[in-house]
């Protein structure tokens, strides 16, 4: 047993830890046993010497000094956890309440999930009704900007017409863009008919 304790100390010094119950037990015992604590200290000292890492002045009693310093500090009087008995009763009660309330909580979660689904389905339906609004593929930039109406009564009616004007504008732009591409495609003919050379027609003033 003590052999295995020494082994544990050694492996701890080497920063090598095993995760088993025997190791944990040994570790607890080492902490309590003053002899083993000395061993711990000694092992570290040996390691330091082997590594040629010994400080200029050796302080063997550093931990003891720290312990003494902690002892001499004023004690903080924290209220002790009293009335463990009553506490345990509350705990038990709480456990029962939780047990009792759990199914309700689950139902609540399910209900809210259903609610969200209903909402989102409704929203997607609303979005579907809006499909005749052309998608905004391109960002409009007004040249110079335009004056905005300031009055409060004004806005309601104006916003509607503004939105419509905006939709109109987007449609116009899209139509022009696709017609431009179409015309370029059709035009390939006239370029090729002239032996792949750009026609030198020039601007014909009328």
């Amino acid at each position, binding site marked *: 047993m003590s052999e295995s304790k020494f082994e544990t100390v050694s492996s701890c010094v080497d920063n090598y830890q095993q995760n088993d119950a025997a190791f944990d037990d040994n570790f607890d015992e080492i902490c309590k046993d003053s002899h083993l604590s000395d061993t711990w200290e000694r092992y570290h000292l040996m390691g330091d010497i082997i590594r040629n890492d010994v400080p200029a002045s050796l302080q063997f009693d550093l931990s003891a000094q720290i312990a003494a310093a902690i002892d001499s500090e004023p004690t903080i009087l924290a209220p002790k956890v009293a009335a463990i008995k009553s506490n345990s009763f509350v705990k038990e009660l709480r456990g029962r309440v939780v047990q009792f309330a759990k199914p309700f909580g689950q139902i609540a979660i399910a209900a809210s999930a259903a609610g969200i689904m209903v909402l989102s389905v409704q929203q997607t339906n609303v979005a579907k009704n809006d499909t005749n609004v052309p998608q905004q593929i391109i960002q409009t930039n007004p*040249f110079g900007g335009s004056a905005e109406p300031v009055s409060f009564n004004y806005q309601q009616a104006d916003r509607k017409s503004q939105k419509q004007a905006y939709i109109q504008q987007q449609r116009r732009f899209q139509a022009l863009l696709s017609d431009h591409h179409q015309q370029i495609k059709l035009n390939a003919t006239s370029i090729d008919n002239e032996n792949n050379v750009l026609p030198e027609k020039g601007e014909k003033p009328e």
Partner: protein
Amino acid sequence: MRTLIVLLLLSATTSAIATENEQAASWLKKLSLSLKQLNFSTSFVVVKNNQAEPYHWFHGINENGKELEIISLLNGPRRDVLRKGGVVSYIEPELPPYSISTQQIMGPIPAIFRGDMSLISASYDFISVGRSRVLGRPAQLIRIVSKDQHRFGYWLWLDQESSLLLKFALITRTGQLLEQVQFTHLEITKNASENLQQLETAELPKISEVSKSFQENDMAWQVDWLPNGFKKIKANRHRISSTKQPVEFMLFSDGLVNVSVYINKSIDKERAVEYVMDGATVVLNQVKKGFEVSVVGKIPSKTAKAIADSIILLPPTIKND
């Protein structure tokens, strides 16, 4: 003595610039040859407005030396461009499939890249900038820089080995990135890929003839100002397909960039200028004296505004139908 040194330095730098330009021009020549002659299958992503559109692009030559090409958009409704030699077919959701007799695909890749870039050297400088790594390959960066401030520039990253595109971007004169096309995969093969062999046997839609009467030239207005190098490609009257709005239309091009100008009578008397940017493409619209003017193209909004403002209505023969 000092002046001599300065002169020497100056001539050295100018000659260095000259060789850089020559290098760039030869890179672009190699690019156009590669785009015409190599069998390649590649994927790329067009990035603009915080959106990415992925495409597949196949190109190949069959045994008879005929070029076959497929460009298809991979997200959303099908948008395919198929080419068999001199016939290009567009398959799009808006219209029934149609074919045009041409060698140029008007898609995300500017058609001039496979054409003769020296045609646009009057309006653009070509500069070979340096090397970098794109798509895991050593790449050569070539800048196509506008000679004036009325246009955007193109930056091209070309594969050092095959001179094919690895990336290109539209960039303003102040260096702001507007649109970029990043290739995500490139495979050069000895033979045309299987998709292209399938295309060879597939039947393309009938060629739609653009009737000559459709291409009218007598417009009651003219555009008075355009950046140097822009030429009128065509003019017509047509209805905009989605709104059925009848418009008078002119298309201008400087070889790299196309600009459309639309005019129609408006119910509004005046409307302030509005514009949107779709990546590098500006759509500008204004109503003046009862006429709606729109300008669309990959040009700065200031240029579009100047073009719109320069339109002159010819008083004696204002026709509106």
